[in-house]
């Protein structure tokens, strides 16, 4: 925050600048990049990533990290669809899965807040647990289709609001609501205090432990929302996504956007900017017909450059040095 006020270049600004430059370069050199439909396609392509990053951002600002998000996203949705395929009513299936998702969030929170397990390990373990449990007990194959009876899910996936696909709308809503919560509610301000200095926040009388549980419940629910939106668009959910690089992409969006992993910094604006940069980058590279391996290489190189520039411009202070990053 202080860096922003002092007017120096923050990582967020660097990334924003980079996104603008990239956008301009693509607009000039790539035919068809600037067409309205392509811009909508860019937004749509990063919507699910962005929604996940909203949840991850909330947790990271509070100095945590939720590595179980992609597992919850895929497995909760797959379980719900599997139940519906087996004839359970949509309402009942949704209620059961809601309870399951909340339970995962509460379990994460309890492990971190009360058992004091570092968030990286707690959520990494719960991710494996969620995947293993659902994969072995509740579904029989990787891909679970949306049942034909649940046409409302398909219609939801096709819906548009002011010409915007529903995914984009949901990303905007999730980011805006989170912005409001972080900015204007007590909970939101406490998240910053907690992320900035956990001990001090606790001494002040902020109920840090219940708040941690709350954070992880919210991130789990947001992950489930991302899964439902994915299923609505694709008419199925494929649990293979748990093995993909999606989780790292989510962290990439959060970090590249400028929410420091040491907590207490940044906001939803960073998530939106991070997601846009990734979207613009990938879209342009696809138009250029770059193979996937090169796309990953370029993505990783840009992340490294962003991190190096950030650490040059914003050197670690004494407080971060003492508390350590994740």
């Amino acid at each position, binding site marked *: 925050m202080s860096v922003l006020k002092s007017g120096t270049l923050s990582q967020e600004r660097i990334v924003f600048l980079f996104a603008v430059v990239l956008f301009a370069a693509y607009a000039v050199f790539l035919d068809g990049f600037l067409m309205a439909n392509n811009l909508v396609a860019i937004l749509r*392509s990063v919507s699910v990533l962005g929604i996940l990053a909203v949840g991850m951002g909330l947790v990271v600002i509070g100095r945590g990290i939720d590595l179980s998000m992609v597992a919850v996203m895929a497995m909760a949705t797959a379980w719900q669809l599997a139940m519906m395929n087996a004839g359970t009513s949509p309402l009942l299936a949704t209620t059961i899965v809601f309870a399951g998702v909340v339970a995962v969030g509460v379990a994460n929170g309890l492990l971190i807040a009360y058992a004091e397990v570092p968030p990286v390990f707690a959520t990494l373990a719960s991710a494996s647990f969620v995947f293993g449990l659902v994969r072995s007990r509740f579904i029989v194959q990787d891909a679970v*289709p949306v049942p034909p009876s649940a046409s409302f899910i398909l219609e939801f996936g096709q819906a548009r609001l002011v010409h915007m696909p529903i995914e984009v709308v949901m990303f905007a809503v999730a980011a805006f609501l989170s912005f409001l919560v972080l900015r204007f509610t007590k909970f939101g301000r406490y998240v910053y205090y907690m992320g900035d200095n956990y001990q001090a926040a606790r001494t002040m009388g902020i109920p840090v432990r219940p708040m941690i549980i709350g954070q992880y419940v919210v991130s789990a629910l947001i992950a489930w929302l991302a899964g439902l939106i994915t299923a609505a668009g694709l008419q199925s959910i494929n649990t293979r996504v748990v093995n993909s690089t999606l989780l790292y992409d989510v962290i990439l969006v959060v970090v590249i956007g400028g929410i420091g992993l040491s907590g207490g910094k940044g906001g939803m604006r960073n998530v939106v900017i991070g997601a846009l940069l990734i979207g613009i980058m990938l879209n342009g590279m696809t138009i250029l017909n770059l193979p*996937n391996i090169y796309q990953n290489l370029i993505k990783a190189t840009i992340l490294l450059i962003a991190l190096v520039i950030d650490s040059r411009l914003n050197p670690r202070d004494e407080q971060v040095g003492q508390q350590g990053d994740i």
Partner: protein
Amino acid sequence: MTTKTTLTRTLAAALCLATLPALAQETGDPGPAYVQSALAGKKVVLIPLALGFDLAQGWNHYIGSEVRGFGGVWETRDPNWDTAAGAQAITDLISSADKPAALLVHTPDLTSYSKLFKRAQDAGIFVIQVDNRSNFASDAFVGSNWETLGELEAKAAVAACGDGSSKKIGLIQGDQVNSSSLDQYAGIAKVLKDHPDFEIVGAPDSNWDVTTARTVATTLLQQHPEVCAVIDFWDNTAAGTAAAIRDAGLTDKVKLVTTGGGEELDCKALEDGTFHAVVMTDVKGQSRDISALLKFLLQSGLKPGQAKSWLYTLETATTKADLKPGTCWSLKDVQAAEAALAK
């Protein structure tokens, strides 16, 4: 005289006694006993890329039934798309006390398992590669000739486009390391050489991920809305490509050609027009080939590594017009049969 007669009678009786049961046992067919000695108790292990998709479940059921049927021991390992986990499973099996007689491996790429295959063969284990080839020629490969498969896809796409069309085709490839993707591309390129008026306008990778397929297909259609056909290298990712075509409102204009295991979902997608053509792998026939090969190798007296063969599965491009009851197999039925076995 009497002693002689008695002796003869006793001898005759003894002979009768000796030959009777022998006659009952040997019909003159040495087969069953030989098969029993060669196959009974032999362990066969399937290591697919993952057990959770249609092809692997089909193999597990159809080959598993045959192996159990000849008195063998059938096992599977599930690396769940993790190459390292698959390598670990193979290593463990090679060094286990109860060594398998044969490994059926669905290789993830051209090179990762090559050294392990050699080690398995040196340890006396037959290695049959299934579906995806690698750079190492083991005892046998059973699966698609992916180049032929690509040719079939390209021909289906060319036919779907027709003469009056834009003659522009988009490809959604898998990746750049897996033989099934590389060889499919080679096959498609080969056919398009004979149709110089046709052009590939974009060929992004899905990395075998359905969401990525949707994103790259959206971009491809955005850049080239005039394409008349898209070939997606796998029916699983084609679900994402189909979503992109639907989003772009091009369902009637862009024909989607893909390849898959011929499970019911493929037939359903052909029926409702989501897919225009699917080059189907005949899983039942392929499983039968593998079973026959196992029976042969284990009886042949051959040592692992001594002979090589390639058994290519017959592939056909299926369109809506070709659909008949029984064109596709049902994963549901296979799973029900497996569940009944487990009880």
